[in-house]
């Protein structure tokens, strides 16, 4: 058997020791970990950049809409005020009481044997919009009181159709002292005063149903 002598064993041992140096291996491991950390950090920076871009875009968008929203808010307030003003105008105009129309109706209902000497009225400015009208005059005929009652009834019938509530009552009805000529015939007269109350407003009192006579 041949004797083999390794004269370089010291050199090889040193080489091996150098290759297995814990510090060197540790540095390599730390370098690996640091590289992984760096890659993850760079990726997170990219994510951060993306998030920041989104935020910047949202911020710019919000600044834009914020100005528009402020203008819109102001405009909405003005428009709302305009709508309310317009509604108030329209309500006022549509809720007016037309006196010419009333005069026309009363004139048409007054028969030739009825004379109206005075007509006056007032509309309440509050929400009830109640209108009170006083009609004074002279009625003539074989039964002048009946003639005046005819006028009252026809006024009531006419206004009941037109207004929410209508009440037509005599304030006074007295025999007149003078006689008048109607169709060439002298007839007695009666002096009447009629009060008309008309309800036009939303909160006008409801119509009172006529009472039923007992036993009917």
């Amino acid at each position, binding site marked *: 058997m041949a004797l083999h002598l390794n004269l370089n064993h010291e050199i090889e041992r040193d080489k091996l020791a150098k290759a297995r140096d*814990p510090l060197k291996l*540790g540095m390599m491991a730390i370098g690996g970990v640091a590289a992984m950390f760096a890659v993850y*950090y760079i990726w997170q920076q990219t994510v951060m950049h993306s998030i920041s871009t989104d935020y910047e875009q*949202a911020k710019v968008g919000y600044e834009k809409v*914020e100005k528009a929203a402020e203008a819109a*808010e102001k405009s909405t307030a003005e428009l709302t005020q305009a709508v309310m*003003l317009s509604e108030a105008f329209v309500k006022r105009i549509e809720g007016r009481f*037309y006196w*010419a129309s009333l005069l026309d109706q009363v004139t048409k209902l007054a028969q030739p044997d009825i004379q109206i000497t005075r007509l006056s009225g007032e509309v309440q400015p509050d929400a009830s919009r109640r209108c009170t009208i006083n009609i004074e005059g002279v009625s003539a005929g074989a039964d002048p009181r009946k003639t005046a009652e005819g006028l009252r009834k026809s006024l009531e019938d006419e206004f009941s159709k037109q207004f929410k509530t209508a009440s037509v009552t005599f304030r006074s009805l007295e025999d007149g002292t003078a006689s008048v000529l109607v169709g060439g015939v002298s007839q007695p007269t009666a002096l009447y005063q009629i009060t008309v109350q008309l309800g036009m407003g939303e909160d006008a009192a409801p119509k009172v149903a006529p009472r039923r006579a007992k036993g009917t």
Partner: protein
Amino acid sequence: MKLGKDQIQKMVLSALLLAFLVYAYFAVLLGPLMTQQEAVKKKTLELTPKIEAADKLIKQSAANKIRSVGAQDVIKQLNATIPEGAPVAWFPPRVAEFYKARNVDKVTTRLVGMTPDKNLLGYVQSGWSLEFPKVEFVPFGKALAEFENAELLVEITNFAIEINRDDVESQHVTMTLNSIVRK
């Protein structure tokens, strides 16, 4: 394999360096970055409802604008019927001219007072007293109807018509009316 003292020292040193690296990475680099990310995400999320609310407001305003076109037209038309200046300077001549054009010559118009109207901001109600000493019923009735239809801002609140004592063929008329005028 037995580790020498020198090797153990090197291993401990490597472990210490690694620990320091991990600590420094999380404490100095990644930690603040993640905190910053969370903060920015939160801010972005906070902006979203604000943008939605602003968008909603803008849409509402646009819808209101369309709806209010009619209302603004009404106000414009009514404003056009109210002349500039003190009402006492233009209202009585306007009434006189209106009735004169319809053969009702004599009318006296007096200012009774001005009252604010809480429903009509920027406007006031001017109260007027009108007196027609001598009118013929039918022409006057027609003129009154036209007046009520033409003067949309006028409302007659009191009205009285009676036979003239000295001339039973004519009537005496008094009325009180409110007219809307600018403040």
